[in-house]
């Protein structure tokens, strides 16, 4: 397998939701796993309670992606972060996908009330920072959006 091909696989993982990739051919095989996945049998709340910390609590001064400054969508409330309306629905947005200003990108549930999270900008989602069903605190970064127009 050539370095170029491995690079292509890495790009694929980086720019999408893919967590694990296994590729096999006649002469080679490769297995790649995303480094920041904490696979767990426990529910997100249980895990978070055990760790005693909400993910994404460490502060970033200016969010960056590939050397570019990106816009953060921050949580407006405290609650549980959901990527879709329900488990029967597909996620509202995907990494790499485009969004327009005012578009619904997530739902946060607090005290049985669902609150829409809307994108304040137009651009491309370069990173989704919170896993589905995980708790979030006020001001926590949820999405990184690249607002720069492609040249």
């Amino acid at each position, binding site marked *: 397998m050539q370095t170029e091909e491995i690079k292509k696989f890495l790009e694929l993982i980086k720019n999408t939701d893919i967590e694990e990739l296994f590729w096999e051919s006649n002469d080679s095989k490769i297995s790649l796993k995303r480094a920041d996945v904490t696979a767990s049998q426990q529910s997100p709340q249980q895990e978070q309670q055990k760790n*005693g*910390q*909400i993910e994404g609590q460490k502060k970033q001064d200016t969010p960056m992606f590939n050397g570019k400054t990106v816009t953060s969508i921050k949580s407006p409330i*405290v609650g549980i972060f959901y990527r879709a309306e329900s488990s029967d629905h597909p996620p509202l947005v995907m990494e790499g996908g485009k969004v327009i200003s005012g578009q619904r990108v997530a739902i946060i549930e*607090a005290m049985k009330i669902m609150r829409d999270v809307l994108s304040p900008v137009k651009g491309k989602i370069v990173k989704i920072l919170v896993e589905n069903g995980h708790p979030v605190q*006020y*001001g926590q970064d949820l999405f990184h959006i690249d607002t720069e127009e492609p040249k």
Partner: protein
Amino acid sequence: MFKKILIANRGEIAVRIIRACNELGIKTVAVHSEADTDALHVKMADESICIGPAPATDSYLNVPNIISAATITGADAIHPGYGFLAENTYFADVCESCKIKFIGPSKEAIQKMGDKIQARKLMEKAGIPIVPGTTEPLKLDDPEIPKIAKKIGYPIIIKATAGGGGKGMRIVTSEETLKMAISTAQTEAKAAFGNDQVYIEKLIEEPKHIEFQIAADKFGNTVYFPERECTVQRKHQKMVEESPSPVIDNNLRKKMGRIAVKAAKSVNYTTVGTIEFILDKKGDFFFLEMNTRIQVEHPVTEMTTQTDLVKEMIKLANDEKLKYDSEDIGIFGHSIECRINAEDSEKDFLPSPGKIESLVLPGGPGVRIDTHIYDGYTVPPYYDSLIAKVIVNGRNRQESIIRMRRALKEFRISGIKTTIPIQTKILQHDVFQKGDYYTNFIVKHIYGV
């Protein structure tokens, strides 16, 4: 016992509650605004959740975010501290609906004592002496008002029913200014508390402010602790408190303590709270108000009686039984507390937030510091200016005065201004030394404020 308590507060009281939880083996959740990310209570708690931007209305008063923080962390109880949501019946009600234990009395007790007019009426009915005055809200155009005011006898004070902590009051010395004073008081009350109801009380001249800590379980047992004297005030804000009071003997203590218990029982009060009285020069005392929360000055009682009121409050909220009577509570010497605020006492107490460049806290025998400040901490401008409480205990009042003078001298802080200079003056003053001081002490002897 509760497994995890969320502390819906900040500053020194949040630190205090976390300490009590640590000793009881209870996990803690701190909530904080964006301005309090580096706060001590956040560092000390097992978990922390950011609940909003700096302004209190969006964070420490943000009920949905606080309840949500409790839900997502699995907290089974919330301790509201003092101020903020501590006496908010809506918050207590929401906690109940969400099956989270509110560590404090019932929402009914909070509501009854929170409405000052209703509380006065209740006390009057229970045969408890109240400050002479009205027990109904005033109507500005009521022709009877001048007559009522005259009967009570000038000078009088107009107070807001939803007020408390010394806020929303106006003194009236003669009938000429009565109507204007009522109108202004109503407008101010509406703006500050959302409720324009006001009532009249006789202004007791040269009073002493004596309060009784009480503790009550849900089985009907209520006890009183030896009194705290909180007479040294500036613009109705307490600056120095002591326990026991230099003017209260055992007989008066028993008499007032029993009345305090009666007052608490009349609203089926549980956990801890404080009944405030006014003591006049003749030795007559009157119910002023009840504070249905843990108070700022609780450490004075803790030092004098060698008890832990915050642990007790949590245990009582856990439906435990009180294991002692009022008579069992001993008095161990004498204690004094100074509330240190980040204010410039030479510039009319201008708030002095900012970075603490260096800090050395007092220590040694009989000295306790309850604080959230640390070397390098930046005091934010958005909240209450209380930054530390210096509490001392001595074998007698004279020793505790000497001890407090020493402690204030040892307290070294640079980068911000504090009220230490004025408290130093108070503790040096021979009127304070004699114990023969009234609520006008600071105005009369220290400052012309």
